[in-house]
């Protein structure tokens, strides 16, 4: 098992803020919009350096999406930012008509996704956004795993022409990917090569998958770990190639089982190479208040759960 270490923990939303700060210097067409959550989205640096390229929209997300479309039509590259709950379900129709169907170059960049939003509870813990955005024709969907990857994804999106949904989170988590990484949209990252099982993970679950890989190694199980940061378009080749070797898959995501990464992988495999799959995710329920760690444990979204699912799926080979 390849060793991954970290020296600090940071929140992925700060990676977004750092990416925006850099884009403020390098990409004169990039704009930021926000619906009254500037501090939460870590936009202070971008706004300080580029006040004329920031548009505060107030608590009016539907309008923010439309304004973003208008800016994009005019040649700007707007990043519309808010919490994931308010940047997906609340504005689904606005994204559908004014962004996706109209193919306007709008980036919807959203924080506080999933259970790890924590104490605020289920009203804010969106667990259905990847499903909604995956279903939207033409939408690129990205869920990075740590600070560095989120920063790199934020920067990469500025040169990607077309609608995109970039989802990140609130809690501090280990920073284990390279600071100077090249982020390729739609290209999986091979975290660890192995032969017994393929673990496909996204977002905060990637670090958990690495932890699981180390536990499995102690039991003589050689896990291949793939980070799918781009849920759509899915790197089908990377997954099929891995499965040809391992013959079984565990998927892991901070999202409903319905419609997320696991479903995308199952669709791919059932059409191309039927393979036993076990899925880690929230099973048709809402979240609740608690610390991020408590919630991830209670809902089975951690390394221990991945280990258990690996054993189960290997028994089905």
């Amino acid at each position, binding site marked *: 098992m390849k060793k991954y270490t970290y020296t600090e923990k940071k929140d992925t939303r700060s990676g977004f803020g750092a990416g925006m700060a850099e884009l403020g210097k390098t990409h004169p067409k990039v704009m930021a919009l926000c619906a009254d959550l500037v501090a939460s989205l870590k936009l202070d640096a971008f706004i300080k350096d580029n006040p004329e390229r920031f548009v505060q929209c107030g608590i009016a997300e*539907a309008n923010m999406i439309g304004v973003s479309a208008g800016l994009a039509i005019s040649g700007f590259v707007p990043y519309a930012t808010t919490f994931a709950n308010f940047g997906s379900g609340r504005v689904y129709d606005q994204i559908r008509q004014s962004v996706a169907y109209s193919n306007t170059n709008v980036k919807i960049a959203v924080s506080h996704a999933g259970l790890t939003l924590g104490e605020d509870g289920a009203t804010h813990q969106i667990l259905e956004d990847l499903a909604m955005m995956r279903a939207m024709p033409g939408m690129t969907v990205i869920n990075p795993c740590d600070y560095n990857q989120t920063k790199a994804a934020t920067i990469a999106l500025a040169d990607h022409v077309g609608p995109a949904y970039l989802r990140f989170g609130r809690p501090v988590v280990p920073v284990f990917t390279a600071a100077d990484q090249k982020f390729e949209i739609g290209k999986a990252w091979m975290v660890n090569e192995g032969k017994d099982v393929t673990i496909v993970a996204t977002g905060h679950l990637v670090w958990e998958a690495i932890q699981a890989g180390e536990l499995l190694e102690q039991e003589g199980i050689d896990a291949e770990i793939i980070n799918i940061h781009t849920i759509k378009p899915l790197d089908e080749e990377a997954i099929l190639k891995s499965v040809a070797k391992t013959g079984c898959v565990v998927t892991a995501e901070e999202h409903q089982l319905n419609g997320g990464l696991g479903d995308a992988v199952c669709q791919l495999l059932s059409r191309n190479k039927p393979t036993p799959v076990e899925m880690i995710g929230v099973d048709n329920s809402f979240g609740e208040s608690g610390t991020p760690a408590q919630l991830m444990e209670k809902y089975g979204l951690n390394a221990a759960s991945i280990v258990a699912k690996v054993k189960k799926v290997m028994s089905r080979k």
Partner: protein
Amino acid sequence: MKSVNELNEIVSQVRRDIVRMVHACQSGHPGGSLGCADVVTTLYFREMKINEEKGSDGFLKFSPSGEGEDLFFLSNGHISPLFYSVLARRGYFAVSELATFRKINSRLQGHPATHEHLPGIRVASGSLGQGLSVAAGAAKAKKIKGDDGTVFVLMGDGEQQEGQIWEAAQFAPHYNLDNLIAIVDWNKQQIDGPTDKVMNNRDIKAKYEAFGWATVDLADGNDIQQVVDAVTKAKELRGKGQPIAILMKSEMGFGVDFMMHTHKWHGTAPNDEQLAKALEQLPQTLGDY
């Protein structure tokens, strides 16, 4: 720039196009299309500054970003027959293409779309309430770029029941978008009946003023001279720190007697006999497609 008399001739043809298009596919929305025909024709043929350059295909060159141009957004996208007729008659694409409206493999979708790359359309509309936001974004972009073009947007009055309209209505004055002219088609009809009965949105003018807009009354949106005067007045109000709303009283179905004074022709197509009766009232001025 077309004179009022010339505009009256063009708009008669536009109305013929509308009823013929809706009849041909037996679907679509003639009522609002007829009611707004005068204002949209006036904007495109007289009041809007658009790029007059033509491409090698003989049609007007269209740039979605419209740098240096005035822009028009149709928020109440269901009156697409009007939009398509005006765009074709203005020279963005062949008038013969109007025959494909709402048919399979057409660029003239039921509601306006950019997806099929029809020249003249900048954003999809049809799901109501979104156009004012998009127009505000485009107006904001012109401000940032130092582009002196004006952004026009047309909305329905039933559409004013959508919450997003009022999000956008508070946004535009907050950013002093005095290059934005919104037109509300105040015809007092919507699908289910008179607006006052379906959901009384009361004094729309007072609402816009309370939100910080300058307003212009247009007592009869089916009188081209009055339309020209109102748009001229609205343009004079530009650059004074406030967005401008034209409250346009219009008659749904205007120009076809049996389609007027009722909501019943909001989304109903005429049969052969009704088409003939309608066309008798609308002189052919530019030649049918």
